[in-house]
C-alpha cells in the first residue's frame, strides 16, 4: 500500500517479529524495541516506556532505510543429502544439535528408507505440499517422507500424513499463529472413514493416547515437520509460555463411528463429505477440558453439569478477542454420554444447542481491559454484570463427534483464535 510504518515490539518478541516479516517476503521492516512487557503493567509505567522510546520512534519514522538483503535461494528438490559416519547415538545427537529433531531417538532418513516410504503415496517426490510456517520451509513430498521415516511411520500412513499437512497449510487453519503464540496450543487431528480401519488409526479406548502406532508416529511426524521445516521451537519463534507434551505428539484419533447412536451422522458427513470418504480434519486447539459424569440420568442434568464445567475456558482470553466467538468449537462426546442423550431421543444438534445454552459466564468476570466490548454489545445487546455471555455467538458454532471408548468422559476442544477446522480428503 506504500505507506511507511514503524512497529513497536518488545525485547521478547522482536525476533519473532523480524522472522515473521522476513518469511512474508519483507527482508527488513522498521521496528522499535521496548523492554518487555507492555501488557499487564500500570498506566504510569507504560507511559514511561513510551516516553523513553519516543526519540527512537521519530528517528525510525524519518531516517530508516531498507537493506533489502535476502537469504540465498536453493532448490527445494532433491532434498540435500548429508554423509554421516558414526553410531546411532551420535546421529541422534547430531540431529538434535542441528535442530533437525525433537531430541527423541529417530530412524535415520536414509535415501533407501525414504524411497520405501514414498511407495505409500502416488504423489511425485518433488511435489511441493506447501511452505511450513513460521520459517516457511518448502515441504516437498520427499521431505515429508523423510520425516515420516524419522518418526517411525509405515508407508501406508503417508496419505493420512499428507492430508493432515494439506489441512494445516490451509490459511483457515492459522498454523503460523498456533505455532508462535504464547498460548498452550496443539494440533487436533480427527480421522474419519474407511482409512481408519485400513491403516489402524485408533478410534476407541484411549485413542488419543500415544500408545497406538499409527496415531503416535503420524502425530510425531507432524510435529517434527512443524518444528524442523517450520522452525517452530522455543524460545523463539515458538513463544509458548509453558508448552505441552502435545508438542511431541498432538491430539490425533479416529472418530468412533462404530458407537454413533442410531440416526447420528459421522463428523465428516456433517462437514459435507460422503460416508465412504476418508477425511482428515485438523484444528489448532487449547488444552481440552474433560467432563466426568457418572451420575446424570437425563440429558438435561448431564448438559447442565457439562456446560458449567466448560465455562472456565471462557476465561482463556477468547471472549476478549471477539473473533473467537465466531469460530467453530468442538465437543468430543464419549460414547456412553452420547447414548444417554440419544436414548432420550435427542439429536446431535440438540446436544450442541443445550451445551451452548449452559456454557456461559457472567460479564462481570471479564478482565476490565478487554477490548471490543462495543462489538460484543452490538451482537448481544446491552451488557450488565449479570449478563450470561456464551462461548460463541451461535449454537451452530458447536460441532460434535464421538470420541473415545467405554467410560463416562467427554472433551471440549476450544479453538485457537482465528483458526477454523479444515477437512481434507485422504488421497492415496
Amino acid at each position, binding site marked *: *500500500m506504500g*505507506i*511507511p*510504518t514503524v*512497529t*513497536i515490539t*518488545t525485547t521478547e*518478541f522482536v525476533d519473532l517479529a523480524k522472522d515473521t516479516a522476513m*518469511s*512474508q*517476503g519483507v*527482508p527488513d*521492516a*522498521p521496528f522499535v524495541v521496548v523492554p*518487555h512487557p*507492555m*501488557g*499487564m503493567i500500570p498506566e504510569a509505567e*507504560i*507511559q514511561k516506556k*513510551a*516516553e523513553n522510546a*519516543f526519540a527512537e520512534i*521519530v528517528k*525510525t*519514522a524519518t531516517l530508516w*532505510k*531498507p537493506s*533489502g538483503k535476502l537469504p540465498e*535461494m536453493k*532448490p*527445494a528438490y532433491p532434498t540435500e*543429502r*548429508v*554423509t554421516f*559416519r*558414526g553410531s546411532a547415538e*551420535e*546421529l541422534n545427537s547430531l540431529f538434535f544439535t*542441528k535442530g*533437525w529433531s525433537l531430541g527423541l531417538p529417530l530412524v535415520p*532418513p*536414509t535415501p533407501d528408507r*525414504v524411497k520405501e516410504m514414498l511407495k505409500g503415496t502416488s504423489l511425485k517426490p518433488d511435489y511441493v505440499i506447501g511452505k511450513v510456517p513460521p520459517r516457511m*520451509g*518448502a*515441504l*516437498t513430498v*520427499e*521431505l515429508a517422507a*523423510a520425516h515420516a521415516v524419522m518418526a517411525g511411520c509405515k508407508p501406508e500412513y503417508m496419505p493420512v500424513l499428507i492430508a493432515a499437512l494439506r489441512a494445516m497449510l490451509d*490459511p483457515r487453519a492459522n498454523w503460523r499463529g498456533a505455532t508462535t503464540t504464547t498460548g498452550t496450543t496443539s494440533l487436533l487431528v480427527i480421522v474419519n472413514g474407511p482409512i481408519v480401519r485400513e491403516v489402524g488409526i485408533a478410534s476407541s479406548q484411549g485413542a488419543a493416547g500415544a500408545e497406538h502406532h499409527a496415531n503416535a508416529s503420524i502425530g510425531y511426524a507432524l510435529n517434527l515437520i512443524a518444528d*524442523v521445516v517450520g522452525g517452530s521451537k522455543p524460545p523463539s519463534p515458538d513463544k509458548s509460555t509453558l508448552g505441552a507434551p502435545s508438542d511431541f505428539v498432538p491430539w490425533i484419533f479416529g472418530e468412533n463411528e462404530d458407537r454413533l447412536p442410531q440416526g447420528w451422522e459421522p463428523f465428516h458427513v456433517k462437514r459435507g463429505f460422503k460416508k465412504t470418504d476418508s477425511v482428515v480434519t485438523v484444528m489448532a486447539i487449547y488444552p481440552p477440558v474433560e467432563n466426568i459424569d457418572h451420575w446424570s440420568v437425563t440429558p438435561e442434568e448431564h448438559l447442565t453439569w457439562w456446560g458449567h464445567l466448560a465455562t472456565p475456558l471462557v476465561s482463556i482470553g477468547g471472549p476478549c*478477542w471477539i*473473533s473467537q466467538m465466531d469460530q467453530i468449537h468442538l465437543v468430543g462426546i464419549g460414547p456412553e454420554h452420547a447414548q444417554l442423550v440419544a436414548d432420550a431421543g435427542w439429536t446431535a444438534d440438540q446436544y450442541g444447542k443445550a451445551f451452548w445454552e449452559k456454557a456461559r459466564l457472567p460479564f462481570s468476570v471479564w478482565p476490565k*481491559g478487554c*477490548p471490543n466490548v462495543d462489538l460484543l454489545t452490538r451482537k448481544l445487546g446491552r451488557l450488565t454484570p449479570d449478563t450470561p455471555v456464551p462461548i460463541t455467538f451461535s449454537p451452530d458454532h458447536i460441532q460434535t463427534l464421538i470420541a473415545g471408548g467405554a467410560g463416562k468422559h467427554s472433551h471440549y476442544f476450544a479453538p*485457537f*483464535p*482465528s483458526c477454523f477446522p479444515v477437512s481434507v480428503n485422504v488421497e492415496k
Partner: protein
Amino acid sequence: MKTKDCLITMGVLLIVLGFLTLTARSFAEGTATAASPASQGFPSFEVLNPEGVVQIVPTVTLNPHPSTLEGKTIMLRWNGKHNGDRFLNRIAELLVKEVKGVKIIRSWEVAPETVEPITGSQERSMELMKKLAAFKPDLVIGSQAD
C-alpha cells in the same frame, strides 16, 4: 637444483590444492561426521537433511520514509493487546507537543473493527490494513505489544 626445488614446490602445491578441492567438494555435498574417534569404526552412509530450504521471494518494496513528520498525518494502529493503546496515546501527546502541524488518527476510534490481535491470515491482515489505508496517512505507527 633449481629445477628440483621447483618440482618439489609444485608437488606440495598440488597436494594442498588437491586437499582443498576434496574438502570443498565434501562441504558442497554436505558432510556430517561424529566427533568421537570411535565413530571411525562405523561405515559412512547418507541421510536426507530434514530441514528443507527456505525460498523467500520479496513480496513488497517498502517506500522511503518521510524526512520530517511536520505537517504529516500519522495513523496510530492498536491491535487490541493490553496497554498498546495507552502507549500510543502517550506517543500522540508527545508528537503533538514536539512536531509542528502533525495530525493524529487513532485506528481504534475511526475503525474499531480493525482491533484484532490475531488476524490468522495475510488476507485478513490486508483486509484490515486497507481499511486503515483509506484514511490516507503518511505514516503508520503500530503497537504489537504483549
